[in-house]
């Protein structure tokens, strides 16, 4: 059972470049989330989705976009990469709000 799969695991970008972080889950979960984790700051919610076709902003959405065309996939797009977006990005999914969130292993992104 793969669970939540994130690709790539590592990436280095130049300032101003764009990229898409991929997230796929095979558990048929309706809820999906994107977080960023910075040292000493815990996880901050970027965007979330309660089902295919529905997305909403989290705590720190500026500079990011998402889409949810299928239940399985929830890609995160960075349009103009900035050094402040250097972080570890985690995708998660859950069946319902109070159910456990299942996390991927993260994408480590550096912007230079």
């Amino acid at each position, binding site marked *: 059972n793969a669970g*939540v799969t994130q690709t790539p695991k590592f990436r280095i970008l130049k300032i101003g470049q764009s990229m898409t972080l991929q997230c796929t889950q095979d558990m048929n979960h309706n809820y999906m989330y994107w977080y960023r984790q910075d040292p000493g700051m815990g996880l901050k919610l970027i965007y979330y989705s309660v089902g295919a076709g529905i997305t909403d902003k989290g705590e720190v959405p500026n500079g990011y976009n998402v889409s949810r065309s299928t239940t399985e996939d929830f890609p995160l797009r960075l349009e103009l990469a900035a050094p402040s977006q250097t972080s570890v990005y985690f995708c998660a999914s859950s069946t319902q709000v109070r159910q456990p969130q299942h996390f991927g292993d993260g994408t480590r992104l550096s912007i230079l």
Partner: protein
Amino acid sequence: TQLLEQSPQFLSIQEGENLTVYCNSSSVFSSLQWYRQEPGEGPVLLVTVVTGGEVKKLKRLTFQFGDARKDSSLHITAAQPGDTGLYLCAGERGDYKLSFGAGTTVTVRA
């Protein structure tokens, strides 16, 4: 500012000792979850508490949710090196989102 404040930020103890991690807020939560994260991996859920005053035990780990549902604690008895990791609390306030604390890094020395 963090909605959930965790303390201490770092904790280093000898194998066999006990430890407690605290998670405090001025907000009321519908539920609170505790996760453990190891380097290079995503967080993994340890427990969810939903009722004020609730106490849950998971082997040597004891979790408590405050009566007012604003705070929680994690107590580890006779810590082992395998307990080493980043412990995160996360609260849910009735919407679709979790708010995470900054985490407590626990190191258990053999």
